[in-house]
């Protein structure tokens, strides 16, 4: 089975082709360039260099968020459209779980992305030969994250060291996505309905939040 895998949810970009769960080709970048301009070029390059045709793809796996709203939408839009056009199955994986799997760390791991204004997107997982969610993914204040850390033993913080918020973090492990790794943990892959799939923002838009507050008062 040939799987095309896509993660554009933050500044790093990760695309891969796996065959029966094993990596055939991957491209991982961390440059300040818009994913919208590069992602399809990378996908094309992956196929060409691995010798597969578009029609060889059997399924698509996409990182569904959280992360940069625009970034997540680019990956999800491409994954949905490709899955529909090629007539293949679509799966999603949490962008936080991608980091956890990519880091190679075992035990309790806490991947996090910058959520601005002292907040982060994070979750807590126990990784062994399988994946277990200990604290659900969410948009949280750093205090909440530290409280969650206290509840579990020997937690390894995972963050992208190029992000500004890491300056204020205690010791963390630098980790960026390598989406090829997630097929090692089938339990974190979620089957999606192509038309109904939406990104996992973990946060409503500011406009909707304000509107809901207004409705209540």
């Amino acid at each position, binding site marked *: 089975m040939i799987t095309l895998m896509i993660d554009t949810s933050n500044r790093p970009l990760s695309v891969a082709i796996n065959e029966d769960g094993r990596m055939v080709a991957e491209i991982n970048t961390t440059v300040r360039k*818009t994913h*919208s*301009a*590069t*992602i*399809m*070029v990378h*996908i*094309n390059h992956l196929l060409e260099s691995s010798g597969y045709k*578009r029609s060889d793809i059997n399924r698509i796996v996409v990182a569904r968020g959280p992360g940069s*709203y*625009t970034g997540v*939408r*680019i990956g*999800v*839009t*491409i994954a*949905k*459209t*490709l899955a*529909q*056009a*090629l007539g293949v199955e679509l799966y999603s994986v949490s962008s936080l779980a991608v980091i956890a799997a990519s880091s190679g760390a075992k035990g309790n791991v806490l991947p996090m992305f910058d959520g601005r204004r002292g907040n982060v997107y994070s979750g807590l997982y126990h990784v062994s030969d399988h994946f277990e969610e200990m604290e659900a993914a969410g948009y949280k204040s750093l205090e909440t994250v530290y409280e969650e850390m206290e509840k579990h033993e020997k937690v390894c913080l995972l963050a992208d060291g190029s992000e500004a918020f890491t300056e204020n973090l205690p010791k963390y492990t630098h980790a960026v996505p390598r989406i090829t790794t997630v097929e090692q943990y089938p339990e974190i892959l979620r089957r999606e309905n*192509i*038309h109904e799939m*939406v*990104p996992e*923002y973990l946060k409503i*838009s*500011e*406009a*909707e939040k304000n*509107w809901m507050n207004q409705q209540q008062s």
Partner: protein
Amino acid sequence: MNEDIVILSIETSCDETACSVIRNGNEVLSNIVVSQIDSHKRFGGVVPEVASRHHVETITVVIEEALEAARMTPADLSAVAVTEGPGLIGALLIGINAAKAFSFAHDLPLIPVHHIAGHVYANQLDEELHFPLVALIVSGGHTELIYMKDHLSFEVIGETRDDAVGEAYDKVARVIGLPYPGGPHVDRLSKEGHDIYEFPRAYLEPGSYDFSFSGVKSSVINTLHNQRQKGQEVNAADVAKSFQESVVEVLTVKTLRAVKDYGVENLIVAGGVAANSGLRARFEEKCQDEGIKLSVPQLKYCTDNAAMIGAVAYHLYKKGAFGTLELNGRNTIDIEEYTM
């Protein structure tokens, strides 16, 4: 025998998720438009992040529906077209990335299209365009006078220096207390009123084809404010009529002067505000008097749709003007860049 050119086109520049299949630039086989207006009404205007979220929810649905309604399969298509800009960047990116993925999966050429060119070519869906022509584009984000000596030849001869007409309509509607989007409500209300206020008409310096609507807008706001402060009752219909008169007069006078100065016989009026009854009536009357051929698209092709994008793409296809997998959205693009 010429082979048919069948294009699937996608438009997501603002708050409509749209997809169409069109044959030979004028035969609309399907035209799917999913409007987000009910969602944005909550906020009194289009919220970009909310628009982007809706686009990604609907994009594959409109593509599938457009193909089904046209009774076409991807194998029948010649190319995929998409709005490159101008528009809301996050919204554009959904259509663009979907178009790139679709064209890649089916190995079809990709055609980037300028949104305003789409509004002009909406007329081609009803009848062939005759050149040279002058086009007045009046929409939520644009007010432009364009001179075209032939297909895909765009020269901007005038544009707004501040608010777009549709934007001014929506702001005036808001101070009158009408729901969003206010343009059609102001239009309707104006039929019951009289031009008693004589709001200013901004003609700018002599010879200029540019527009300015912030003056008349402020004037409406100030007048209402003063009257309300004095406790006087405001007749909303008179305000609407007076505002509309000012706008219609400036638009028609300037446009017809451009038509005369450029020596053309064909005038196109397009974009969402082309739905305005006062504007249509005045143009019809004046054009009849002066022997000018006036074209205004059907209502459903005035507002944002993908068929109009496919109409332009037909000509771009014939010129081989294809985009690459690197195609990115742009929130502003000078339409003159699209001149071939």
